[in-house]
């Protein structure tokens, strides 16, 4: 693990060993519930979660890169650690996810600033090492850019759905992708969020600590705001309609199209017997083969693996996507027509 200085822990508090940190500072959790001066920090921790729940980034007491007050640093770390304690006590998973994401965004800002730091080489090196240690992404500085091997880039970029992240829209040279500090850090956002999330999920849940109850109850109330339910229109997405259309006309639907159609309908709860007749008009229709393949996809024969419907991205590559404005915001055909209420 990295050895971190005081201000680094404040910037990246998730890298700290929580129990050890408290011990080093000479505190116990109980003290925070009882000591009126320390209790303030619980309120601060609650606010830190509340800001995250609203989808915003917690504004730090740290000003710029340098720390204004000696006291600000530990307060930053405490409010983070206490926020985790509150979250664990409340047991609200939606809040943990939101908190992890917001904290990742916050850390992102610091990482980006450190990467772009021209005057302090050690800050830049630390950011590069954090990225390497946590996510095994090796980045190198090349002129004004950071470069990363195409294969590493792809492992992360496939999680993005914005077209600017597609490899085709990147500067690629010598098997490497060129990124700005902002893009470099943005590339690992999801992993950073996952890392923080895992750290919280894996943390031990303490028993209720006197003085923490109010904030925990408030969190439970807060999380109620985020329960949602969805309604579905039941209409098929354009790619599926198109595939059915082709088959009805007796034209040839490529293997990848048949795979999409079958896995889509299976996911929607149709049975192999209901789906098979759709393929009757295919130029090379063979009932035995069709049933065999459908059963294979459904997982009722062969290895037992149930195949899932391809993502919109994959279908685009296969020229099977016929997106309309109604497709906006979905990443698999299965999400089509679902609306949050």
């Amino acid at each position, binding site marked *: 693990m990295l050895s971190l200085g005081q201000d680094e822990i404040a910037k990246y508090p998730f890298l700290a060993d929580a129990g050890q940190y408290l011990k080093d500072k000479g505190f116990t959790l109980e003290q925070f519930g009882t000591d009126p001066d320390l209790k303030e920090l619980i309120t601060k921790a609650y606010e830190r979660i509340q800001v995250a729940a609203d989808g915003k980034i917690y504004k730090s007491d740290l000003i710029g890169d340098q720390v204004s007050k000696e006291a600000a640093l530990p307060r930053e770390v405490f409010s983070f650690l206490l926020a985790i304690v509150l979250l664990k006590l409340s047991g609200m998973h939606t809040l943990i996810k939101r908190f992890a994401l917001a904290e990742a965004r916050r850390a992102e800002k610091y990482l980006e600033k450190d990467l772009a730091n021209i005057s302090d080489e050690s800050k830049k090196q630390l950011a590069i090492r954090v990225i390497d240690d946590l996510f095994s992404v090796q980045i190198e500085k090349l002129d004004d850019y950071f470069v990363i*091997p*195409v*294969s590493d880039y*792809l*492992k992360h*970029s*496939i999680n993005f759905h914005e*077209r*600017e992240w*597609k*490899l*085709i*829209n*990147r*500067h*690629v*040279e*010598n*098997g*490497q992708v060129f990124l700005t500090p902002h893009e470099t850090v943005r590339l690992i956002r999801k992993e950073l969020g996952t890392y923080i999330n895992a750290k919280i999920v894996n943390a031990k849940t303490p028993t209720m600590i006197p003085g923490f109850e109010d904030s925990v109850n408030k969190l439970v109330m807060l999380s109620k705001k985020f329960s949602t339910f969805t309604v579905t229109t039941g209409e098929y997405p354009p790619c599926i309609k198109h595939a059915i259309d082709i088959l009805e006309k*007796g*034209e040839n639907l*490529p*293997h*990848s199209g048949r795979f999409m159609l079958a896995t889509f309908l299976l996911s929607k709860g149709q049975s192999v017997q209901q789906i098979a007749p759709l393929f009757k*008009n295919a*130029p*090379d*229709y063979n009932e035995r083969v069709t049933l065999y393949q459908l059963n294979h996809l459904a997982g009722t024969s*062969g*290895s037992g*693996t149930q195949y899932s419907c391809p*993502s919109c*991205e*994959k279908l*685009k*590559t*296969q*020229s099977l996507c016929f997106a309309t404005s109604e497709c906006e915001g979905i990443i698999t055909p299965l999400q089509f027509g679902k609306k949050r209420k």
Partner: protein
Amino acid sequence: MKETDIKFLESAFKKYYFEQFNLIRVPERTSEREFGYQKFNSGMTRHISVKDDKELHLLLMQNVPSDVYCSNAYYSFPNLPMNEKDWKEADLIFDIDAKDLNLSCRTNHTLSVCNDCSEISNNSEKCLKCNSTKLEKKSVPCKNCIDASKTEVLKLSEILINDFSINKDNIQVYFSGNEGFHIYVYNTQFQQIGSRERSELVDYIMFNGAIPEKFGMKKFKPNRNSFPDFDESGWRGRFSKYVYGSKSKRSKIISELLSNGYSSFQKTLDDVSENIGAKIDPNVTMDIHRIFRLPGSINSKSGLTKIHCKNLEKFDAYIDSSFLSDDTVEVLANCPIEFKLKNKKFGPYHNEKVSIPTFAAVYMICKKLATIA
């Protein structure tokens, strides 16, 4: 297919496998690969592991397969079911097929074989005899198709070498045995990437999904300085060479692009993708569990061999891949289009008995354009 035709093809294939085994070699790291084969009129047998050349030879002689395949992936246990194989990595593979190139020559050498009544007609949508729509398209040799496919191979190699810094020696090109090329790329940084990552590589290579911003065009206040230069590397360079035509026209074309606006620019990008992107089959490259035709084996769509092209430019698909014998055989041929194999002309045949060399007879029977008389 008729029993007599299958017997004939099997004996021709067996003879080839017996005499030309030097052409059929197991790939490197043999024991980590999955093999599979098909027999005529029968399904696929896969999840097989093979130790060495000798074992492969034995398998070919015992089963006389119509087609033989081998994985581009490496597994710990290639002969176990898919989810127990323990996938380790996979070579990058590409398939370029003339039928996907939208060539104007296609209609001239494509026939329709009716699956219901076996009637053969020139490329049509419906069977002229029984009106069935269950038609199989069969294409006969065409030099233009091969040349156009070669151009795509060169486009692909250029991208692999220049953008991904892949060593030329790690790229191997094979004629598929029908009407396209298979390209293998070994020992690269891409060995371990999964299917979704490979799909992104595919879009890169095909020039799919490009946005105007990357090529200098902005929605608001576009600036001519951000447009690519003629000599730039990568896609910005290829784009400018294609769209500007020459260095001197750069300025004029940029003015045109600017005045046409953002959405028109997006359309330009989508249109040029057809010309500057390499036309590969996305499904093949995305598939990390595929068993791909084994080099040196016969393609049962044609009776021709999937063979390594040492010199792509000089490679003549319809001479260099034909290894079956010249012994004549009598067939009932129905092939209304003339074609050339091993420098000899055949056809057109209109439902007639003809005596022709085995390699041509096999070719037509594989295409369902002839049967043993």
